[in-house]
């Protein structure tokens, strides 16, 4: 069965580039692109939701 990939939405106008989501993602899905976050490796996402929970700025939304 094919693995269903999550959707990760970045709200760029809210992201303040604090690095929290990038640093604490257990599988290193995210990276910084300039001052805002970007998805680097969606396949690695284990849908733990920690990035969404920890983002202080409502800037990252994960739909598993």
């Amino acid at each position, binding site marked *: 069965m094919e693995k269903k990939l999550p959707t990760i*939405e970045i709200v760029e*106008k*809210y992201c*303040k*580039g*604090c*690095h*929290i989501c990038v*640093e*604490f993602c257990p599988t290193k899905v995210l990276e910084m692109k300039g001052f805002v976050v970007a998805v680097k490796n969606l396949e690695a996402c284990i849908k733990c*939701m*920690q990035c*969404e*929970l*920890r*983002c*202080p*700025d*409502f800037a990252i*939304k*994960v*739909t*598993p």
Partner: protein
Amino acid sequence: MAFDYDKYIRPGKLPHIWCPGCGHGIVMKGLIRAMDSLNLKKEDTCIVSGIGCASRLPGYIDCCTLHTAHGRAAAFATGVKMAKPEMNVILCGGDGDGTAIGGNHFIHACRRNINMTYIIMNNYIYGMTGGQFSPCTPTGAKASTTPYGNPDPGFDIAKLAIGAGATFVARGTAYHAAQIDKLIAEAIQHKGFSVVEILDDCPTTYGRRNKYRSVIDMMNRLKEVAVPVKAAEKMTAEQLEGKVLTGVLHKVEKPEYTEEYAKVIQRAQAAK
């Protein structure tokens, strides 16, 4: 599904004013999830704060809100609760607001055991005014007013609340984001005065003075010092050195103030 925070945020209010990596936003999101899990209605819920960065929180949430005077959230909130005992009253603010200028209001709200929930965001500093030390600043830490290190011991907010008579006391951290809503929801459901201390970070005025190179350093510190109460039971005093307990620390039943006050009204009317 991603959690829909938008329905609880006042239109046009984001992005919020907090600095990059400030934990206050993480706490606000936890409060919103707690409100959602309990199905609290906007018109039946009032969030009351004092002054400070943490106290800006009610401005963002779409429900009844009061942004009051420095340290006075508990006084205003008590007024709201006495006038409308059926209202869910939630207080929030910082360590400075709650334990310095507002320390007296805080301990007396605990003593009264009035059915409200107080979320106190402890970043160990007066963030808003540029990093003066607060009663929670640890010994030795640097603040704009203690450039050679703070000689005072810091308050333990949870112990202060328990000592003053709060009937529910819990502690979490901004790093442990998934736990915040659960602690707040349990606190709101508790009948009596409940206190939820969230260990927080202020990278802008505390972090940079105290050798935290980044927000991540501060988050890692929260991750390392926190020990869940259950895990602590199996640890030695030595292992617990420098650690901070998290989870529900105290929960007891005692007469609740608005109910006791209703009895006073009945007695007074009967005596007429």
